[in-house]
């Protein structure tokens, strides 16, 4: 990387995360003077967006090529008081907490105290969410049966499609114009609502153009003071670009990147949607610009690489907005989950790997930064050269790129009713979530704690954690005569809590549809404009809401222990077992030994254990999939944890698999840490026993020591390992390449490992930023040594 990029990269890495009150103040100012009662909600939100884009401080850093910051400097994170208001105590916690902190200065505190808190207290979306939940929901939420994604952040989770790179705001406004003309006020009862939504979209389209022009104005000021002729020429080009995009469709490579970046800022400023926003299939979207300009001589490979690197820095400058409470526990990271997709297939089904896919891999390897995340889509048509190139980056051990199965993703999307073209244009975002890019609103609603339901079943609906009867009475543990009876009780509890979760989800979806539309995001996802309907109200072509299952490995092992020791060989009564659990195995080491070492476990390709995984998976799938959402879509499942497996573990007592009270659960569909002892093939075979095609993504984490990657031959074998897993319909696999000794040393000497990035679960993070529990958990995950 050249000197400029080095400088920008260092600035970004060394920037301190701060909390910025700028957005919150602008929103408060707007609402104070807005005619709230008289203005339709979408228009109100659009005007609020315009107010921010018109008045926020423009931040342009020396030597930048791509411009625009959400905050007033890199890593200054905005807040969203209309969604979630931070109290002064919250600010102190965010400022002081040892992990994932954001520094809060006195001016910010004062702004919160004098302006923001007095105005928003009791009026936020978060207040509405909790006011609308039932007692049952609140009990389950407090007990840690599930989390709620939309209590501090807006729905989102979506990804740009190719049309985003082919249209400017002028084109979108034409589309809005024709949609307005087509409104049928005499026959469509929603015509008036649609008119308001479309008017709101017009306002935000203009607002983002105004925002770009403000950057051009600022660049002109900088140009006047600039002495270097080379930089003057760059600035002139940047001014030209900021005046052209996003008003018009981009024509050049540089324009395409800046165009996307303004839009990205629009999405993450309008609201705080989960997973920020994401350019998706970047090697596909940029290819026409790249080839055209390379041929015409106006771009070189080196210049393209420099622009991409400058683009990468912009992502890294934007941490996820500060999270609190359960939301911070379930997603305890600065990462905001923008996941660049490379490879896959084209619309016509042919292999999509191209020269830009390799160039972007070079960028990922050299940049080695936290954000954006990256992944390769491997289809059966992808060349081995591409997969092996990815492995050479993976082996350097910073957890990127992760590897996804294009053919499984397409099958998933087709089975959900997407068209073949929309499916082939899809991919994975966030951690591992399948989506039809540019056409689907797919939102995650919260993690679901399968093992908590098991614990509650063992105690007849009583939660030992909160000491409340929160489940239904399915029978005293000692009353179960067979494993079947017990499992049926578990399934009843599962369905009961899923019903609670889904009822809550639908209420929350309605709250977002009614009170918190996102007209700017709606501009970008088909067919919100032609439907005249907001993204948050079901305007997209496809609408899916996910419930994410957590702890499949743990629950499998728990059931395996119960079946073997209580019901099959009857060495232990259910009462004795629950006594052991309540004692947290204190004085029961012999039993714990048997549970840990003498019981079939998930991840060893042993049907004795694996049958339970498939069964729980199917029960979970049956309970959720196909149920209707408020937005007019359906609920589906996926299997990923982010960091919720640590939180969910913290609310569960000792469990039959030998796990002590409070310890983390297994993550994704990976085996319990240390429970797999037959090597990676057995892990993959176990993992393939659930039907990945029925999900919207599964997460499998494999930890390998660096020695596994030390020769071409070894990499060839790993490539074959991945290909076979994908032939068995596996969705995703990620490799954590770092040895346990290094991690232990990093725990002792964090100062020496400031740049150590490890794979957590669907994303990478700085090892130093992880909680100690999570650090330990990562160290304990099986490290497969060469056999």
């Amino acid at each position, binding site marked *: 990387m050249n000197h400029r990029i080095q400088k920008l990269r260092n600035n970004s890495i060394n920037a301190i995360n701060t909390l910025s009150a700028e957005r919150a103040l602008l929103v408060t100012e707007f609402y104070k003077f807005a005619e709230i009662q008289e203005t339709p909600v979408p228009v109100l939100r659009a005007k609020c967006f315009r107010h921010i884009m018109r008045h926020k401080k423009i931040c342009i850093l020396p030597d930048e090529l791509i411009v625009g910051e959400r905050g007033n400097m890199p890593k200054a994170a905005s807040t969203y008081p209309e969604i979630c208001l931070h109290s002064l105590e919250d600010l102190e916690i965010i400022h002081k907490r040892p992990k994932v902190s954001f520094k809060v200065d006195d001016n910010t505190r004062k702004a919160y105290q004098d302006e923001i808190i007095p105005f928003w207290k009791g009026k936020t979306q978060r207040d509405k969410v909790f006011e609308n939940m039932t007692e049952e929901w609140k009990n389950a939420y407090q007990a840690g049966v599930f989390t709620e994604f939309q209590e501090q952040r807006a729905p989102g989770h979506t990804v740009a499609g190719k049309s985003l790179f082919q249209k400017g705001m002028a084109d979108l406004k034409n589309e809005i114009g024709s949609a307005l003309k087509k409104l049928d006020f005499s026959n469509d009862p929603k015509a008036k609502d649609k008119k308001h939504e479309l008017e709101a979209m017009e306002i935000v389209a203009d607002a983002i153009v105004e925002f770009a022009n403000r950057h051009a104005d600022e660049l002109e000021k900088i140009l006047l003071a600039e002495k270097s002729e080379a930089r003057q020429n760059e600035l002139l080009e940047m001014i030209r670009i900021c005046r052209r995009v996003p008003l018009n469709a981009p024509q050049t490579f540089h324009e395409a990147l800046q165009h996307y970046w303004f839009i990205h800022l629009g999405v993450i400023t309008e609201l705080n949607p989960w997973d920020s926003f994401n350019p998706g299939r970047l090697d596909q979207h940029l290819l026409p610009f790249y080839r055209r300009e390379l041929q015409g001589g106006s771009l070189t490979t080196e210049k393209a690489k420099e622009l991409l690197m400058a683009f990468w820095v912009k992502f890294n400058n934007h941490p996820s907005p500060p999270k609190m409470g359960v939301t911070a526990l379930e997603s305890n990271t600065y990462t905001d989950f923008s996941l660049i997709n490379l490879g896959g297939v084209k619309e016509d089904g042919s292999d999509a790997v191209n020269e830009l896919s390799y160039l972007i891999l070079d960028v990922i390897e050299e940049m080695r930064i936290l954000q954006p995340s990256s992944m390769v889509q491997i289809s059966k048509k992808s060349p081995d050269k591409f997969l092996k190139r990815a492995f050479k980056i993976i082996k350097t051990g910073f957890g990127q790129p992760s590897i996804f199965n294009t053919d499984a993703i397409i099958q998933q999307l087709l089975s959900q009713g997407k068209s073949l073209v929309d499916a082939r244009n899809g991919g994975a975002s966030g951690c591992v979530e399948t989506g039809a890019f540019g056409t689907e609103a797919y939102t995650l609603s919260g993690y679901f704690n399968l093992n908590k339901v098991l614990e509650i079943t063992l105690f007849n609906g009583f939660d030992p954690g909160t000491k409340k009867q929160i489940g239904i009475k399915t029978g005293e543990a000692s009353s179960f005569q067979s494993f079947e009876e017990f499992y049926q009780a578990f399934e009843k509890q599962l369905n009961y809590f899923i019903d609670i979760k889904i009822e809550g989800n639908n209420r929350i979806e309605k709250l977002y549809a009614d009170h918190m539309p996102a007209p700017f995001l709606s501009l970008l996802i088909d067919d919100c404009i032609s439907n005249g309907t907001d993204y948050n109200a079901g305007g997209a072509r496809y609408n899916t809401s996910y419930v994410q299952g957590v702890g499949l490995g743990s629950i499998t092992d728990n059931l395996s222990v119960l079946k073997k020791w209580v019901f099959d060989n009857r060495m232990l009564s259910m009462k004795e077992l629950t006594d052991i659990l309540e004692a947290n195995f204190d004085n029961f080491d012999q039993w714990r030994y048997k549970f840990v070492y003498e019981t079939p476990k998930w991840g060893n390709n042993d049907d004795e254990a694996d049958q339970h995984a498939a069964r729980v998976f199917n029960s979970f799938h049956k309970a959720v999939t196909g149920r209707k959402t408020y937005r007019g879509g359906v609920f589906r499942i996926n299997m990923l944890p982010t960091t919720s497996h640590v939180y969910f573990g913290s609310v569960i007592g000792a469990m039959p698999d030998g796990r002590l009270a409070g310890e983390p659960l297994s993550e994704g569909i990976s085996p319990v840490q240390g429970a797999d002892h037959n090597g990676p093939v057995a892990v993959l075979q176990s993992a393939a026993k659930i039907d990945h095609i029925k999900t919207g993504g599964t997460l499998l984490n494999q930890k390998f020591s660096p020695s596994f990657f030390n020769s071409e031959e070894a990499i060839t074998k790993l490539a*074959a390992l991945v290909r*076979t897993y994908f032939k068995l319909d596996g969705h995703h696999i990620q490799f954590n390449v770092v040895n346990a000794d290094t991690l232990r040393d990093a725990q002792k000497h964090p100062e020496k490992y400031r740049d150590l990035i490890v794979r957590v679960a669907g994303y990478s993070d700085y090892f130093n930023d992880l909680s100690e529990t999570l650090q330990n958990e990562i160290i304990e995950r099986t490290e497969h040594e060469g*056999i």
Partner: protein
Amino acid sequence: MLGLIFDIRSFSVHDGPGIRQTVFLKGCPLRCAWCHNPESQKNETETIRKNKKIGNKVFSSVEKVGKWMGVDEVMKIVKKDIPFYEESGGGVTLSGGEPMMQGEFAGSLLNACKNENIHTTIDTCGYAEPQVLESILPFTDLFLYDLKIADEQKHTQYTGVGNQLILSNLKIISKNNKPIIIRIPLIPDITDNIANLEALRNIIESTPGIIRIDLLPYHSSAYNKYERMGRIPVYSVSENYDSQKAAEIKDFFNNSAPFISIGG
């Protein structure tokens, strides 16, 4: 018919091409002084002490090493990984111990693999009756063949048997046009002296069909295994093999086969 097996491992990446399962047969006619698999030597079940931790408490148990298994029982396990063999060009490797010591069982197992279109490899010390070797040859796609010491007397001193049979069996395999990978354990002063290496090189260069040489540097990790079996190793040094020296030996064999690798 039953075979005595002491382990079956999947994803063994050092025992032949692709992703493989390795079936370890128990019993070996040799007693190499440096043997890193002491549990593989006796053709009978034995016990080994295992220590497993629960919290800070160590649970010590005595476990049986070796299990009598039928061909069908083994096939049921190795067939599980067929998709992985097919994708990677892998298959099944018989190792030991010395698989040919249970020649009839080994032959049936290899035959059963071939019936499932699974690639077969045998990892052998070469010490077996020629009839046994000839009976398994048709079902074996690749030989991993150990050559340790060229001098007959020293071979007897360090392994307990002479090397005549080993060298003549190598010729039989070569004549049958089966591909051979030669494996040479690098044991300080015993196998890695220049006289021995030169003699081994002569044997290799005069044997057609050798596609690769794997140099296997001595590893000190076996000591603990001996202890847990209540035995004392004949040969033991605490340091692992000098990697510089291994590289020099690799250069020494440079023209003797198309590929030379360290570590197999």
